[in-house]
């Protein structure tokens, strides 16, 4: 599955960057969401994918039966998802406010702070 996922993740990275380059505020933020998802999937992929081996231990047992999928990347991704959620919630509201203030969706028309 990993080689297949390599292309999936690559495709997601490409799609998100393309989206962020569209100059639209809304697309920018959706692109960011996609990008964040892509990174999470990347971690999931590179740390190995296993079917049907959740890292859960049955009651009374000491280890998950039949082996386990690596729980550590799962914990990392979970943390990353949550962090990503917080950050993107901020970003979503930011574009909302920016649009209210600037009255403009086109990113290239928001240059006053650079030039």
């Amino acid at each position, binding site marked *: 599955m990993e080689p297949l996922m390599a292309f999936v993740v690559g495709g997601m990275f490409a799609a998100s*960057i393309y989206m962020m380059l569209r100059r639209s505020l809304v697309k920018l933020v959706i692109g960011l969401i996609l990008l964040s998802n892509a990174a999470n999937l990347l971690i999931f992929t*590179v740390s190995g994918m296993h079917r049907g081996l959740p890292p859960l231990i049955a009651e009374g047992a000491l280890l998950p039966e039949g082996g386990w999928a690596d729980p550590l990347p799962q914990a990392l991704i979970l943390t990353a998802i949550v962090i990503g959620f917080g950050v993107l919630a901020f970003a979503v*509201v930011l574009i*909302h*406010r920016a649009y209210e203030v600037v009255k403009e969706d086109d990113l290239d028309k928001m240059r006053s702070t650079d030039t």
Partner: protein
Amino acid sequence: MLLAVLSGFIVCLLAPWLTRSLGDRANWVLALAPAALFVYFLGWVPEIAQGEAITVHYPWIPGLEINMSFLVDGLSLLFALLISGIGTFIIIYAGGYLHGDHRLPRFYAIMFAFMGSMLGLVLSDNIITMFVFWELTSITSYLLIGFHHEDRNVRWLALQGLIVTVGGGLALMAGLLMLAVAAGGEFTLSGILAADGIHEYPFFIGMLLAILFGTFTKSAQVPFHFWLPNAMAAPTPVSAFLHSATMVKAGVYLMARLNPALGESELWFYMLGIFGALTMLTGSIMALRSTGVKAILAYTTIMALGTLTMLIGIGTEGAIIAAMTFLLAHALYKAALFMLAGALDHETGTKDVTKMGGLRKLMPITFIAACVAALSLAGLPPLFGFIAKELMFEAVLEAEALTTFLAILAVLSAIMIVTMAAVFALRPFLGERKETPKTPHEAPLSMLIGPVILATLSLIFGLAGFIPAAALVQSAVGAVYGEPIAVELYLWHGFNLPLMMSIAAVVLGLVLFWKWDAVLALFKRLTFIDRFGAERGYERFMDAIVAVAEWQTRLLQNGSMSNYLITIVLTIVGLTGWTLLVHTDTPIPLGVLDFNVYEAVIAALVVAGALFASVTSSRLGAVATLGIVGFGIALIYVLFSAPDLGTTQIMVETLTVILLVLVLFRLPGFINYSAPATRIRDAVVALSLGGLMTLLILAVNDVTVTDPISDTLVEWSEPEGHGRNIVNVILVDFRALDTLGEIFVIGLAAIGVYAMIRFRAEDKAK
């Protein structure tokens, strides 16, 4: 010793307070400080005159070889005496010149800081400490030049002086560090002068050029000479001190100081000889074109600095003797002349000699002092300047190469100096009385005591050359030459070529003086000098920097988010991708393709959703497709044994949709802002990153990890972590700190969002 050097800074701190409490008499009291220093240094004379060199060492930052080490030998003592001696008169003079100015306390403070820096510069044995003082003189002089900072022009000129000298200083720093390396890690001058193998340093030429760049800028050598006359924007006491006796000589000092170590190279000779001579000539020519009292003196200073540089470059025994003699003579008469120029300016309200006349009756003492000092400047007997000039001619004729060239330039400049000495000493005082902005009368005692004494000294030293020779010049020459040399100074040294050159110079110079008005008119028409001059070069350079800055900022920081993103993405792809291609040897293996159809379909849907979201023109379509992507990812997590991830992904997806719909309806739909070509460009950029990520994953996938740390965590989970959901045990126990950070992120985001929404809402309410 340390106290002596630092006293300037100590007085600097006290000066404002003293000035306020002492009022009008402050200058006399404050002058006691340099006077005491002068006496202190005078006390060293007998010892040093024996050819001794004394080093004193106080650790400062020993780890970096930056120490308060001092070297007292003939050269440094000569400078120290000049600085403290002339400094004494300058302080007294300033009290008169700036009488009543409310910024006088500040002025004294900076002046003392400058004096301290200058002393530190010439006395430092440690090259870094020397450099520290070197830069401090640049900064303090900047503050002094810009004393009348309300004037836009003054600010500009002060900046010019600073940029040139600091710019040179930076090169000097590199040069000095290279020198230290070349000398085998030796950071003291005494050590460097004693070191072998400096000339074998592979980057010797670069080092030399860097050092000379520093000294040339500081000492106003062509083509960096322009800042010096411009620095006359400073109050006259400053000009008298900085631009005659002290700061501009710092470069000369350093060249003299390093002469024993670097002087044997041809490059040294040619650089110093040619640039010195050209500077000498340029200074004289510029002087001839000037009508301002201070400008004339400034250009003759340039001439003097050129002369000194040239002499050090020639480097023969005679040249070094000439250089040290000339140095002393110049300091004496130039300080006097500057103070007198200030007196004229102060009393008449103008600086233009052509607007003055007939002042001899009103200002007799000034007149006499000016005549004496100017005679020394012109190099006429029986003054000390004459001895110096004769020695200079002699040294030029002895030069190993370029003899004719140097001699002609020396005579030419001598002619013009004679002219300008006459202009300065005679024009304002003789002839008819002219109307001036202020009604002149004799300047106060404080402004005359310095010039009179210094002029007198010029006379005494001329008549009794053995006094300076024995006390100062000989030991200084020894220090510069690197070995002891006997020095004897006499007015009369026979009827020889130098004397004839002098006579010719005087005669021709007086002829020029006679026709000065015509000459002036002619020279003023030569405006091309201004157009092509070094100052234009400086201005162009500064304009170019601003232009390049503009261009660069337009190019890089142009406000276009797409450009920013593309640059960053291409940097990522470039650096990482290039490394991947070049630094990993094998083609990246695809790995084992093992998947079920349904898994592949779900994975494909995720990508298809992402791609559709990125190309659709429907905003909400994109949001809804995001839902597919989110659910698809959740399914992948579940199908590959991560139930907690699946659940979290679903919840987060749901909440994200809630947020988006709460926010989105105020936003407009998608408009296509980009042309097809742009879209192709963007697609290429996007695909490059996607491709990179694919390759990275495949490459890493090829690496087999045998014992991840998670195996241990799995083992610990139930017995040690008391939990059967290993992911959760990791989250709340093994890696609780991550989770703590994570919830702080969430909390912070909420605070930020809350502020974003409510802050302005309450603004509106007001």
